[in-house]
């Protein structure tokens, strides 16, 4: 199983890396995030870069659904779902490999952001601890976020609709983190569980995290990966 996943991940990565659209979107992502960083540093006249992260987060919630929807819909678009389901390959192997490949690409994008942030060092001193903690925070957050978006990408056969649902849900979950203190007591725990971003903020706000957001994001990731596998199993065999 792991051997097959390794090859499927490789194929998924190749498919992205050979695609012109991927480079177009990566360039766009890096341009906007680079502009956001330089704009923040110059307008606030500070190298305290914590204010940049919400902007990068906003970018992530635009680009992650795109990659997830593209990865899932291409099987239908290219008729590959028939080849896959006709072969002795399980949906677990397919979904996990898609998840890993998108996660790795997100980490690649994040690494580029770290390089961009390191360039700020030429202006003034930056906190490496904050940078490392932020990278870790984002990496943990992406685990849950990618799994969540893979689930949205399997919801219907219409990729545009899936993207719309994923984007709206991501924005709502993102905004939740700002309104959590206004939520009444009873709903608050449910709200806190859904909101992926709330606890992860400590990674870049104070430069240290706790175990809770790690477990939280991993649990969300696992739950939605399981749901995606179940949903794709049903969809691929019944459509």
């Amino acid at each position: 199983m792991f051997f097959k996943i390794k090859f499927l991940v490789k194929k998924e990565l190749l498919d992205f890396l050979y695609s012109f659209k991927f480079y177009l979107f990566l360039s766009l992502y890096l341009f906007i995030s680079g502009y956001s960083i330089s704009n923040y540093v110059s307008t606030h006249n500070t190298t305290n870069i914590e204010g940049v992260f919400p902007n990068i987060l906003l970018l992530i919630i635009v680009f992650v659904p795109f990659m997830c929807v593209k990865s899932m819909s291409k099987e239908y678009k290219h008729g590959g779902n028939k080849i896959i389901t006709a072969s002795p390959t399980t949906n677990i192997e397919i979904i996990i490999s898609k998840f890993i490949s998108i996660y790795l690409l997100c980490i690649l994008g994040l690494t580029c952001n770290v390089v961009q942030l390191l360039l700020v060092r030429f202006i003034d001193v930056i906190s490496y601890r904050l940078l490392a903690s932020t990278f870790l925070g984002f990496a943990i957050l992406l685990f849950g976020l990618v799994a969540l978006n893979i689930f949205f990408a399997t919801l219907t056969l219409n990729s545009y609709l899936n993207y719309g649902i994923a984007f709206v849900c991501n924005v709502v979950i993102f905004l939740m983190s700002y309104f959590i203190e206004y939520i009444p007591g009873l709903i608050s725990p449910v709200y806190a569980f859904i909101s992926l971003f709330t606890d992860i903020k400590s990674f870049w706000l104070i430069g240290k995290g706790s175990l809770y957001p790690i477990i939280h994001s991993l649990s969300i990731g696992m739950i939605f990966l399981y749901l995606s596998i179940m949903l794709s199993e049903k969809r691929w065999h019944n459509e």
Partner: protein
Amino acid sequence: MFKVNNIYKKEDDEDMLNNISFRVKDNESLGIIGPHKCGKSILMDILAGVSLPSSGNVELEYQNIFNPLSFYTKKDIGYAPQEFNYYPNLTVYEFLDYVAILKDIVNKKERLLEVERILDLFDIQRLRNKLMKNLSRSYKQKINLAQAFLGNPKVLLFDEPTLGLNPVDANDTREFLKRESKDHITIVASHILPEVSSICKDLIIMDEGKIIVNDLAKNLSKDFCQRNILSVDTCGNLNDVKGKFDDYDEVLLIDYIRRDEENFTIRFELKKDTDIRKEVFRELNSLHMPINNMTLEPLTLEDLYGRLETFGEIPEAKIKADKPKVVDIKTKRLKNMEDK
């Protein structure tokens, strides 16, 4: 042995497939023919394990392919679906390598040899480094067929294998499939009757999700598939021409189709390798009837369906009808026309 037991498929409250059962023995081939949207592709998807039936099962060597415990029997099924536009950014070699991995050929050396064997078998070595998106429709279809052969599966399933190919490539593909499918259980679905009959020994006909003609292997002989239809557009008095061609040995069936008050078409079903165009010309000329159009074409599935509408089935006796039955048919057709 590949066995299909009482397959039933329902989608959106509509019966897509109804009580489909048949079996194909080792090294034998079966053709499934039927018009577009008769349920062939849905059935092929089910046989390949792509789609699940609402009820019924598919057995390969007495193992139900839908049973999770016998999941790996899928390894013995090679499927070339109708739609093909896979992974445009992969090269032909990468694509075949990928399918080989999907088919559990995990050993790198073994996989390399298998992909090379398929590239040689299909004579596509020169395409190995070409991106899938740069291939012509014809080559894409070749790759589609090639991937089904990966892993030397026991069962080969082809859904419309020559769709979109030019006549030369289509003919080559038919010959190739006929030659290479000898050591496999082969099932070919198509709407082209001569194509299926040239590849497969046994044939079944489907319409509206049902097998309407079963056990037709011997009944639908190649002779039947190679019959010709002569269509003659003319005008004048229809009664003058009736009975003129009843004595021709070459003629099996005659249909008179009135287009308007004066114009009508005469359709002759002719025996294999026969042609009566000269005789028809002479007869119509003697009646002073002009010939507006005359075409000689092979018998199509539509003609076969015309027959099904008339008789409800295609019993061997009626297909190979000789004189008296031909007269019966003509009388029936004429009677129908007069009623209208």
